[in-house]
């Protein structure tokens, strides 16, 4: 772990550059402590897989003071036992039907398993929310079972429907709003992941634990899910400069 000053008012705490649950549980603990200790001097905090990005209030705190506070917190975290309280598992219903699971058959073929197995494997695991980014409420979950881990599409789609559930390598995610994207789409949730009118804004936050529950078409519609109209937008493509999603 080390603390890097990125700019006038930002720091990055870099952890070991690996994606695993143990590393992430350390990040989770430290994020809690930073929020508590820095309180109003913290403008923004972005936890990620292997780092924490911090924007601090330069009018209240100098860079050196902020660095010292962070160093102190790092030391106290090191000596801790990392016994993070287990978080409740948030259940997200997903309809894996072919109308919405645009890439399910491709992914199954590629992974040399049946479509049903893909669904079973995907919905049997409890995932960690590593970070939220790319778009408001877009949660990166991991790790996907190696058997169904599949690379992003070569050419991203221009439009992916809100609620779409995708896989990219060992990550899985839900598109909170309609957007371009290159993940392999295997289902759709009727749940609103982001809602600016709602108090909790984003359904998921970094550190949450998530399990997908397979639902049938009736249940999907009952929960407010929408099916695509006759006109499909499967083949349109777009440049995705960030190459991220």
């Amino acid at each position, binding site marked *: 772990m080390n603390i890097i000053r990125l700019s006038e008012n*930002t720091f*990055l705490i870099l952890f070991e*550059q690996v994606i695993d649950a143990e590393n992430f549980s350390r990040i989770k603990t430290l994020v809690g402590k930073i929020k508590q200790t820095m309180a109003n001097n913290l403008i*923004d905090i*972005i936890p*990620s*897989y292997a780092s924490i990005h911090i924007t601090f209030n330069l009018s209240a705190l100098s860079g050196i003071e902020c660095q010292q506070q962070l160093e102190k917190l790092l030391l106290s975290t090191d000596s801790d036992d990392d016994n993070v309280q287990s978080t409740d598992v948030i259940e997200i219903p997903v309809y894996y039907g072919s109308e919405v699971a645009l890439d399910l058959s491709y992914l199954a073929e590629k992974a040399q398993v049946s479509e049903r197995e893909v669904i079973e494997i995907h919905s049997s695991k409890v995932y960690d929310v590593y970070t939220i980014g*790319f778009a408001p409420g877009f949660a990166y979950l991991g790790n996907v079972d190696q058997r169904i881990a599949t690379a992003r599409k070569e050419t991203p789609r221009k439009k992916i429907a809100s609620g779409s559930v995708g896989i990219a390598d060992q990550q899985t995610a839900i598109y909170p709003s309609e957007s371009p994207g290159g993940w392999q789409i295997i289902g759709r949730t009727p749940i609103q992941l982001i809602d600016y009118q709602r108090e909790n804004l984003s359904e998921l*936050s970094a550190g949450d634990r998530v399990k997908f529950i397979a639902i049938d078409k009736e249940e999907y519609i009952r929960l407010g899910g929408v099916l695509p109209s006759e006109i499909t937008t499967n083949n349109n493509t777009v440049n995705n*400069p960030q190459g991220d999603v």
Partner: protein
Amino acid sequence: MSLHVLKAGFLSLIQDYGRYGYQHIGVTHSGPLDENAFLWSNRLLGNHYNAPQIEVSYGAFSATFLEQTMIAICGADLSATLNEQAISPWRTYAVNTGDTISFKAPVTGLRSYLAVKDGFAVDPQLSSCATVVREKLGGIHQNGAKLSEADMVPYASQPHVLVKHGLVKRVPSQFTSTYPKKITLRFMPNISQTSAGERALKTFIQHSYKVTPNIDRMGYRLSGKVIDTESSGIISQGISLGAIQVPKDGQPIVLMRDRQTMGGYPLLGCVCGLDMGKLAQSLPGTELSFVPISVEEAEAEWIVHKNFFGV
């Protein structure tokens, strides 16, 4: 009680100082691309630093004032007129009911800031009215829409005596800019494990880079000598304002106010906050040289700037 938009132009947006405290759910900071020009507009009118303004990019914007007030325009020279009379940026003007302001096309710079006394009265969304089209946040309709024809942007009328006898205020010339075609930007090099590496930094400092036509509120793509990085990607991490990323093609991208909160490309460093406005005003083809400075030096300047504007 409103500014009536006649022609909305290419990209005219309501902006305040930005939306802070929501990056953890993926919401960008947004705010004015040229902070210096934005803050001067508010200062000239005695407004709060965060008072909402209109950021007019590229021009082709015109609107009629339906109430008398004082206005300020700062930033780019977009050949602005008031009732078809040429007006220049970096000062205040009194406007009467029925006066029409137009921003035609860029002479120098790209973005002009139009402020009214006490700011435009726009309701905030997630504590800010900064417009982010892709996030559907901010603006007068609170849905991220840019300004469009026939929009009414509310503001409070000012007493006749203030408008008639109000003093014209100007930004001292040493603080204004005419946005030259060749500029130097200072940056704080990144030498962490997620840096693009020493060799990459050397290439970046030794060569100049051109602003490409591929520029928007998220990022400015530059072109020049290809930068070889030690790795093609890093584990996605939070991204600061002004971060300079090197994607696989070796052509750097500087990330602006509407950047995504996360990025996965190796980094060269961060452009100084105070220099970001200069970049935002650069037309495609502008030649950029980058010089490294220490973060302490940048911090000291930033504090002076913040204190001066009361940010």
